């Protein structure tokens, strides 16, 4: 019996062991793991997000250039939907019954008990129609939010665009973005995303297992109000920007205008451009594909991404370095027989001037003069040290901002090409000298720069020796903050006194009878400048003008590039002069006003189609695609084009996309 009595302990022991197993598992799910706690929260909590309005952007005269417009997303909680009149809903929304069914299926696929978008960005009209009959559609609800509106319909590339975040964005944002959030994807919208976006608000509602709302969670303790984004003040003068875009209509090229004293960008024109409003709303996707597919590549931001040889506009810098290094003085003359011989290579000059001074050399853009200066610069330490001297020269020029990014405040800036000595070592070994790289004297050859770099060089001359990094936004938020970088002066290492003789030449270029841009003289304003006719191995020369005005206390520095347009004096210089006049006087006056209209109507788009080779772009420099991905994109777009154009054997420039875009613009303006 004793032995059996002991079995009591076996039974009691079993009870205790089992109790410990239960407690062990309870300890795990209640105390160790927080997975269950979190699941419980997500069971009962539904978050309704309140989307903030993005910050507005003002121009330098405090005119609103980027603002918000209310739109409404129609949301649906599929589980709460009861059978409804699909036809009535379809009618109110201007969509088909099939669309209604399809969207509902899609929403159900995403989540059947969470609020899911049914139709995004419905029009104000649809919204008004819908409000009256909303009660007939249980489970549906409208959510108001704002989208961008750009009242002036210009500067698409500059502002960039805003789009709903992708899965990738969400993943990379470390939990900041949630599906449905908007995010700036390019331009200012992208680079100032963190300032503009504001803070999302949230309302927590408790739901029971039957998905019926049971009121706010914890008395709204965890609810957050949406905070609007902060406003930006830009340095852009929207009137000047607008004029620039009109002048560049049907032309390929870029204009950059900078206020030299502050580095604020006054206008940044990339042509062909597009209306930023095209990338807002429900047609965003289609319009985006159209832009990407357009062979003139309006999606390229030419002022910061287009590569152009600086051409003759490089000459004033040659002169400055020459003066600083003491190889010439303001009175140095060279003899110009109409060409310059660099070894066996002949550099042609457009004119035969005989003995020519620096002032006149600049005004008349004499190639011979600056090839001689370059020769002196590179050989000043003897023929044997040319490599070393070249490198020193190159570094001096680099201080003007060539060959590296200027860190402007919109994304995807490119740095241009400006090679170090070892680049030439690789090509020529040890045996190269000034004659090998002579084309750089006149801004040709291996050197390329973005229009922004070229305009910035002008700002340096206008400032007599320094620049402030060019930037588009001069003040952020209510406290008017600005990045430190955008107030610091960057000196280029040339003394102020050397600038005046060079500026004399630039003044003559526009204001003397022998200058190359005399036709672009502005009444009452001394515009100092320099034309450039950039030799373009791929096609017709580019027309370039750089300059600043007025001579004393300059208000604006400008660079204008019109691709395949020929002489700098024909297109680029007048365009620059109109821009300068518009900015300084607020209007282009007198007979020049009609010239403006004439200029606007010029169509200089390079022909797209070579009949024999089917489809081929003429190689305007900014249309040469270096990266393979963009090449592929272009090829794709060509395929689309070829399908469209199969019927017509030759496409005339005026049939192309750019005019279409402007037509759309005006239509939107009317609305």
């Amino acid at each position: 019996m004793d032995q059996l009595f002991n079995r009591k302990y076996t039974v009691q022991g079993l009870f205790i062991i089992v109790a410990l197993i239960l407690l062990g598992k309870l300890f795990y799910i209640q105390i160790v793991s927080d997975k269950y706690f979190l699941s419980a929260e997500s069971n009962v909590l539904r978050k309704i997000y309140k989307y903030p309005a993005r910050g507005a952007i003002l121009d330098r005269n405090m005119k609103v250039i980027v603002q918000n417009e209310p739109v409404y997303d129609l949301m649906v909680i599929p589980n709460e939907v009861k059978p409804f009149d699909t036809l009535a809903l379809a009618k109110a929304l201007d969509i088909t019954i099939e669309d209604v069914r399809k969207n509902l299926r899609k929403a159900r696929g995403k989540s059947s008990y969470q609020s899911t978008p049914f139709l995004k960005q419905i029009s104000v009209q649809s919204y008004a129609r819908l409000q009256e009959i909303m009660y007939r559609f249980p489970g549906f609800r409208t959510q108001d939010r704002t989208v961008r509106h750009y009242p002036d319909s210009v500067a698409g590339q500059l502002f960039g665009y805003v789009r709903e975040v992708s899965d990738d964005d969400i993943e990379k944002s470390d939990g900041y973005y949630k599906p449905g959030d908007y995010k700036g994807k390019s331009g200012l919208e992208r680079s100032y995303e963190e300032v503009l976006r504001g803070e999302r608000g949230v309302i927590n509602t408790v739901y029971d297992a039957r998905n019926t709302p049971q009121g706010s969670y914890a008395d709204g303790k965890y609810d957050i109000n949406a905070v609007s984004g902060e406003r930006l003040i830009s340095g852009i003068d929207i009137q000047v920007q607008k004029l620039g875009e009109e002048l560049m209509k049907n032309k390929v090229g870029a204009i950059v205008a900078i206020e030299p004293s502050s580095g604020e960008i006054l206008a940044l024109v990339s042509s062909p451009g597009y209306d930023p409003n095209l990338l807002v709303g429900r047609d965003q996707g289609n319009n985006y594909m159209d832009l990407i597919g357009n062979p003139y590549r309006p999606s390229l931001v030419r002022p910061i991404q287009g590569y152009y040889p600086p051409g003759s506009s490089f000459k004033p810098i040659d002169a400055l370095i020459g003066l600083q290094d003491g190889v010439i003085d303001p009175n140095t003359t060279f003899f110009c027989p109409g060409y310059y011989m660099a070894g066996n290579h002949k550099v042609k000059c457009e004119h035969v001037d005989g003995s020519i001074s620096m002032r006149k050399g600049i005004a008349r853009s004499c190639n011979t003069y600056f090839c001689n200066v370059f020769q002196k610069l590179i050989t000043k330490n003897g023929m044997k040290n040319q490599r070393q001297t070249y490198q020193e020269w190159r570094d001096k020029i680099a201080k003007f901002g060539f060959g590296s990014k200027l860190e402007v405040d919109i994304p995807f800036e490119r740095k241009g090409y400006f090679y170090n000595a070892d680049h030439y070592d690789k090509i020529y070994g040890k045996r190269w000298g000034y004659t090998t790289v002579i084309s750089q004297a006149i801004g040709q050859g291996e050197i390329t720069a973005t229009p922004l770099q070229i305009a910035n060089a002008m700002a340096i001359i206008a400032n007599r020796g320094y620049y402030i990094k060019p930037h588009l936004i001069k003040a952020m938020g209510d406290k008017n903050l600005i990045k430190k970088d955008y107030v610091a002066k960057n000196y280029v290492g040339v003394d102020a006194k050397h600038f005046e003789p060079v500026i004399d030449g630039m003044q003559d270029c526009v204001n003397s009878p022998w200058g190359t841009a005399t036709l672009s003289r502005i009444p009452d304003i001394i515009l100092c400048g320099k034309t450039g006719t950039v030799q373009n191995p791929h096609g017709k020369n580019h027309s370039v003008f750089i300059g600043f005005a007025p001579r004393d206390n300059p208000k604006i520095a400008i660079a204008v590039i019109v691709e395949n347009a020929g002489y700098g004096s024909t297109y680029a210089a007048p365009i620059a002069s109109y821009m300068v006049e518009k900015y300084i006087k607020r209007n282009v006056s007198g007979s020049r006003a009609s010239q403006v209209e004439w200029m606007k109507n010029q169509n200089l788009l390079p022909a797209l189609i070579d009949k024999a080779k089917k489809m081929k772009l003429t190689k305007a420099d900014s249309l040469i695609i270096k990266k393979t991905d963009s090449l592929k994109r272009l090829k794709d777009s060509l395929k689309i084009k070829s399908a469209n154009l199969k019927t017509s054997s030759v496409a005339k420039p005026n049939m192309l996309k750019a005019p279409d875009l402007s037509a759309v613009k005006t239509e939107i303006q009317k609305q």
Partner: protein
Amino acid sequence: MQQQGNRFFFNVDWITVLIYLALCSVGFINIFASVPPEQSAVFSFNALYGKQLIYVITGLILGLSILLFDGRLFNVFSPFIYGGTLVLLMAVLVIGNKVAGNQAWIAIGSFKLQPAEFAKFGTALLLARYVGSFNPKFRDFKSIAIAALIVGAPLLLIMLQPDTGSALVFLAFMFPLYREGLSGYFLLIFLGMIVLFIADFLVPTYILISIIALIAGLFIYNNQRKQKIIFSTILVTVLAIGYLFLIKVAYEKVLAPHQRSRIELMLGLKTDNKGAGYNVIQSQIAIGSGQATGRGFLQGTQTKYGYVPEQSTDFIFSTIGEEWGFAGCSVVIGLYIFLLLRLINLAERQRSTFSRVYGYSVACILFFHVFINIGMTIGIIPVIGIPLPLISYGGSSLWSFTILLFIFLKLDSNRMGFI
């Protein structure tokens, strides 16, 4: 003897009664918390907690009146009580109401009776009487067969309803039999069968067979001289391997699909948060969200907003877990363990074998219920629909546990006597 008033309640183990009341209160409080907030705003006897209060009060009256009986009656009448419950079990198969696929209820007016609940004490009484009268040591086939018959008859009838959960509880009778002399091997074999059953799902069969063969080989190697052991080892090995294959077949052919999926869910072989796994997942979420100290009385969101189905009945433990946390769960489990250990101790102090066997039966039936029910709510046992004793909502269950327990308390209070 002289004092009439004291005679009935003399020697009653009041500590057990207190634990009984404590558990009933825990049940009432948590059933109250489990009903939707709008129903608990004004007290109503039509709400679940109102009915439960009636059940508790009537249960208590029932229990106390049992104490008024002469303890000997239970011994004498045990065959009739047992027979009566068997009749009820058969009747329920004919005239019973089908609820959720189980034909387990007999409706008497608005009251629903669940005979399976009452079969437990009927069986316990007869088994105690058998052991008490004949004092078998369960060393021979005959006594084991008789015990098996007593337990097996109601078990089989309940299986026919089919109510697998309630039927499983009858396995609890193995423990009192073990206490009275049944070989421990029966428990081991039973345990082995469960282990093999689970292992068969998690480990490929050929590996299992290799492991069994290896163990058998080592065992034989160590006992080379003892032919009898070698023989029985080989027999056990062959049976075990046969059992493995039997499981495969039985699993597919015998178990209903919902039972299969419950088992697979429990073993983590599949996940199904919306379908069959919903109950268990939601129950675990509710319990887990209680964390250390719980969200507080009436503050459980999962409870309040109806995320756990069957919350006031089989899944009442999830309410305790969510609102009272690990602390509350420990208290409840502690109360049960204290009750179970005390019942065993009480059983051991009985003079009569009848009372002891009955006491063991009560403790082990309670134990099975507690273990299976709580294990189910926290996902270590497949979903088996049996109530948590004294806490789950329901009259039949509460009364049958009350009767079960108070009969033992009556027997215990008479322990100094005869029987």
